[in-house]
């Protein structure tokens, strides 16, 4: 019985390995069709080095082939990656497709590959080798999926820009996924050649690449068993039809096509979507004892951001011109101004997303230049939220925050591969820190919900929690109160004050003037890219230029004036109150179980 299906079972394993090679890039949100080209490079070049006899008398020839093939895959993927890694989506797919075809044509035109006549290989791979290889590969991806590296891939897949601002070096991780995929592709090429005893370059064509992609997608990329499921489904289908006595010929591909269509239309997330998953990969860990000690934040008053004459122009349009800005640890600096005044451009410069055109600046010790990388700044302690919410929508709320903790958590992949106890400990620490942030913003009960399913206001809060998870020295909030009503905005204001009290410097853009007046230590007003006013909230609220440009003096001068006076008075009260709280130490903000951010000193509770 086994004999009859030994090839089928072996091929299931091999096809699954190929699908894993696609899986490796898909989990990082990339589509590469070069896998078959890499596989054929590995297969054919391995024929040049694999010895007939065990090497040094004990290394089996296949081991030489596998190691060599994987190295070829890695090397070729790396060299290919250098130019193409910056391409995205379909452009990457087409460029890699072109590469795959170029490899095929190259190999066909070589004499050592015997061209289209193909090359014979000794039979070294059987059912055992194939499945052992598959299990090793699957094990790797299983351990990868819960590691920090796995989370970084998921974050890149969901939103590259947001991932960058978490401190993730997107280019390096994309290359890593590319290279891992190359290694797996090389493994596949060698195994296939030494299983089927023959290979010609045409077997590694575009069609084969599409087959591999179909296998990976049908299986699903949300779970590491996806490629195996896809491979079983697609490999067994023809066999099953044969057993059912369906005549060979056009009927079989028709049925296969219909079934494939049904699977893809009715099973979002592929076959692995059928496997029930736990509500969330991780549960909230609310025990503060599990949280590790974090390095202290800069002392209050330390200058963290210092910009002189910074400006940005887009093809002659000055979005920001010659702005001086200084932010100190422990203060809340507000940035207000009409829509389109350049506020977001300014904070993009501060967070390294946009290089300044003119001026100089230092953020957390790093100079802002054209070469400043956002992930570098994030690594040194800058965190931010976005005006257009950029969450990792398909990840749970907790997972989002876990990615946010990238900067202060350990990479656990190697430890996880070896099942070291420290892997577990590090993971628990990371979850504990993330949980604390989630609870702090009031989303403790929604930890397992997918970020994309949260309401608008909750998404805003989650973004803040994610930013806080990196234990930042400087937090940049871009319209955090948008979509919140007055009561919610009030709570947000309290949260921001408590962050400042912890020693974080907060730079906030917001149109909710009442909230800004109540929250900020200083406010800067931008209009047409220039600072038109700067100073204490009470002064800003009375500044005629600000009234004119921003608060609106057009129709109801009296009303606005009254409102701003009222706001200023409010502020005075709030300020007094806050000053009092400052002296008392940081304050628990939301809910009874909320904890301040990584506070080292014991805290007073109300």
């Amino acid at each position, binding site marked *: 019985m086994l004999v009859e299906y030994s090839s089928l079972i072996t091929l299931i394993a091999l096809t699954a390995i190929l699908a894993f090679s696609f899986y490796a890039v898909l989990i990082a949100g990339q589509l590469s069709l070069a896998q078959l080209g890499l596989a054929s490079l590995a297969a054919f070049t391995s024929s040049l080095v694999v010895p007939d006899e065990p090497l040094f008398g004990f290394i089996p020839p296949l081991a030489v082939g596998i190691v060599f093939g994987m190295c070829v895959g890695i090397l070729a993927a790396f060299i290919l990656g250098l130019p193409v890694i910056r391409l995205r989506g379909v452009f990457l797919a087409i460029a890699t497709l072109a590469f795959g075809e170029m490899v095929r044509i190259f190999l066909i035109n070589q004499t050592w590959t015997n061209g289209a006549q193909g090359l014979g290989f000794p039979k070294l791979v059987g059912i055992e080798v194939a499945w052992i290889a598959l299990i090793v590969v699957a094990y790797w991806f299983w351990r990868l999926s819960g590691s920090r590296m796995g989370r970084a891939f998921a974050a890149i897949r969901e939103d590259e820009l947001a991932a960058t601002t978490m401190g993730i070096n997107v280019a390096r991780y994309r290359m890593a996924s590319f290279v891992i995929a190359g290694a797996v592709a090389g493994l596949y090429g060698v195994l296939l050649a030494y299983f089927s005893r023959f290979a010609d370059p045409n077997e590694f064509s575009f069609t084969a690449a599409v087959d591999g992609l179909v296998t990976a997608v049908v299986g699903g990329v949300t779970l590491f068993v996806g490629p195996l499921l896809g491979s079983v489904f697609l490999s067994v289908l023809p066999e099953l039809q044969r057993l059912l006595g369906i005549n060979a010929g056009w009927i079989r591909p028709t049925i296969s096509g219909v079934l494939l269509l049904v699977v893809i239309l009715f099973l979002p997330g592929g076959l692995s979507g059928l496997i029930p998953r736990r509500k969330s990969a991780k549960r909230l860990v609310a025990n503060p004892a599990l949280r590790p000690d974090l390095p202290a934040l800069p002392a209050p008053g330390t200058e963290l951001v210092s910009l002189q004459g910074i400006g940005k122009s887009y093809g002659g349009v000055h979005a920001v011109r010659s702005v001086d800005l200084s932010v100190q640890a422990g203060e809340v600096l507000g940035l207000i101004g009409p829509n389109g005044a350049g506020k977001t451009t300014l904070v993009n410069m501060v967070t390294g997303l946009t290089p300044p055109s003119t001026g100089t600046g230092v953020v957390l010790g790093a100079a802002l230049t054209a070469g400043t990388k956002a992930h570098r700044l994030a690594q040194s302690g800058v965190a931010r939220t976005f005006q257009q919410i950029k969450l990792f929508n398909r990840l749970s709320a907790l997972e989002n925050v876990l990615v946010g903790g990238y900067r202060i958590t350990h990479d656990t992949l190697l430890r996880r591969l070896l099942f070291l106890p420290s892997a577990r400990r590090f993971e628990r620490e990371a979850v504990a820190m993330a949980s604390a942030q989630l609870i702090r913003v009031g989303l403790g009960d929604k930890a397992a919900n997918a970020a994309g399913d949260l309401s*608008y206001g909750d998404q805003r809060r989650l973004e803040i929690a994610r930013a806080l998870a990196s234990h930042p020295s400087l937090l940049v909030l871009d319209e955090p109160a948008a*979509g919140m009503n007055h009561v919610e905005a009030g709570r947000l204001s309290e949260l921001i004050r408590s962050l400042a009290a912890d020693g974080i410097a907060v730079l906030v853009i917001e149109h909710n003037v009442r909230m800004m007046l109540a929250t900020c230590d200083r406010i800067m007003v931008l209009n047409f890219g220039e600072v038109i006013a700067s100073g204490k909230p009470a002064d800003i609220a009375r500044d005629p230029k600000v009234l004119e440009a921003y608060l609106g003096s057009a129709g109801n001068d009296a009303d606005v004036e009254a409102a701003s006076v009222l706001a200023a008075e409010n502020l005075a009260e709030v300020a007094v109150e806050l000053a009092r709280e400052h002296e008392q130490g940081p304050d628990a903000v939301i809910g009874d179980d909320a904890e301040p951010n990584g506070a080292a000193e014991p805290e007073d509770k109300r």
Partner: protein
Amino acid sequence: MSDPILSVEGLQVNYGRVEAVRNVSFEVATGALVTLVGANGAGKTSILNAVSGLIRPRHGVIKFKGQDITKWPAHRLVKAGLVQVPEGREILGTLTVAENLSLGGWHRGSTLNANVARVYDRFPVLFERRRLHAGALSGGEQQMLSIARALIAEPEILLLDEPSMGLAPKIVDEVFSVIEEIRSTGTTVVLVEQNARRALAAADFGYVLETGEITHSGPAHELLADEKVIEAYLGLD
């Protein structure tokens, strides 16, 4: 008040197993400005989307001008005069301002040009920028474009979802004055707003939503004075 132009009865909206809206019923009188206020996730946007045919309700009956429109697709409703200005503006950034406006008049072939001219009159800034890509406009201008685009569809009832979100106070003033103006021309307006104080001040009638259910309703000025409403949504002064 005259007959309701819009009536919603027993509306329930589900996302998967989550009940976003539970047994919500309300009426909008012809020519009135009605506002739905409530916290985040209370289901305001879900109600609007169900009314404009963008999502299918689980239960409930929606009537527009006496006709049952519960199962009508969005495009049919727009043609019939029920138009939404969506949350987040949803302008088409790669299309020009003029193209965005003409999309508003998808079902208004004959009157399109006249409508566009009228809108340009009302919003001269859009006329100035008619050849620019809409993505190049500032946030306030985009919101005006979004409203103007809806007006070109000749709405009998206009559903506005968070029109003041992310806008400078001065622009918010302008948005509200535009809403007043629209209403003064006889168009019925349903307004969903986070800025509950502002919305209630402008509205005739208000409904307060909490986790998918209507908890308070009444003439807007009464709600503005209601202690509970103040505490939950308006904040203390």
